[in-house]
């Protein structure tokens, strides 16, 4: 077994264990920390999949910003003694059965699909924007030429979310 495959298995195991602890931990603060672990493991998987920029973005935005935001929310809203109460509602058993059933169905589909065939037939087409340039340069070119309009819309959405979050979480209502 090659080294990248070993790293992938280790990261997949880490991400899955961390994700299970996120949804099963009684303490929400611990959940947030396990979520950080799962997202960091996924960043390594991105790195293995030749998406270096996305790995760094994952670490900066998810593990950096979103987790800090979640931990702030936990600390602002946590009550003393809350961690002793059960953290799941009465849907836990049916939801567990449903999620496991969905997983089984998805895995059966995955096993039934001829991936090697699709890989052999689809790998030939080449994006003219990405031809012969490194990942980051090609991604930047693609973002600022072909996807420049979605990029601007995304900037607008981020601005609206910023204003909305400040307005919603503000203490004194007008």
């Amino acid at each position, binding site marked *: 077994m*090659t080294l*990248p*495959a070993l790293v*992938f298995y280790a990261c997949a195991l880490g*991400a*899955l264990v961390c994700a*299970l602890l996120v*949804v099963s931990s009684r303490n929400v603060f611990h959940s*947030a920390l396990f*979520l950080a672990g*799962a997202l960091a493991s*996924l960043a390594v*998987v*991105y790195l*293995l*999949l030749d*998406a270096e*920029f*996305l790995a760094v*973005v*994952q670490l900066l935005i998810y593990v950096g910003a*979103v987790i800090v*935001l*979640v931990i702030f*929310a936990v600390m*602002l*809203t946590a009550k003393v003694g809350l961690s002793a109460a059960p*953290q*799941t*509602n009465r*849907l836990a058993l049916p*939801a*567990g059965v*449903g*999620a496991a059933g969905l*997983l089984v169905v998805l895995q059966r589909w*995955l096993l039934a699909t001829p*991936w090697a065939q699709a890989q052999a037939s*689809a*790998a030939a*087409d080449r*994006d003219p924007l*990405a031809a012969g340039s490194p*990942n980051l340069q*090609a*991604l930047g070119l*693609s973002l600022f030429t072909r*996807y420049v309009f*979605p*990029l601007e819309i*995304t900037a607008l*959405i*981020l601005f*609206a*979310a910023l204003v*909305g*979050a400040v307005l*919603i*979480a503000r*203490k004194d209502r007008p």
Partner: protein
Amino acid sequence: MIPGISLGQVLALSAALFCVGLYGVVTRRNAVGVLMGLELMFNAANLNFVAFNGYLHPLALTGQTYVVFTITIAAAEATVGLALVVSMFRARRSVLLEHADLLKG
């Protein structure tokens, strides 16, 4: 692509992450916990994009470009969602979702 790992194995990881996130979203009583489950599901979708990009179109970057947008939207969603949680805590002194029953008849 990762040598020694097939596309199906990466997709299996992402399917498992999605189901775990779904379970978290449905069962968590704490609103912050629900948001964390949502983040797990977002990440499963992102992993799918990157895996399909890396295995089926290694010379194009369409999937990775989409993931940049998805991460941005997910960050915006987390910001607004957590602001709503803080606002709900101010109004009802609780973040448990069964206490958010103002519209229940």
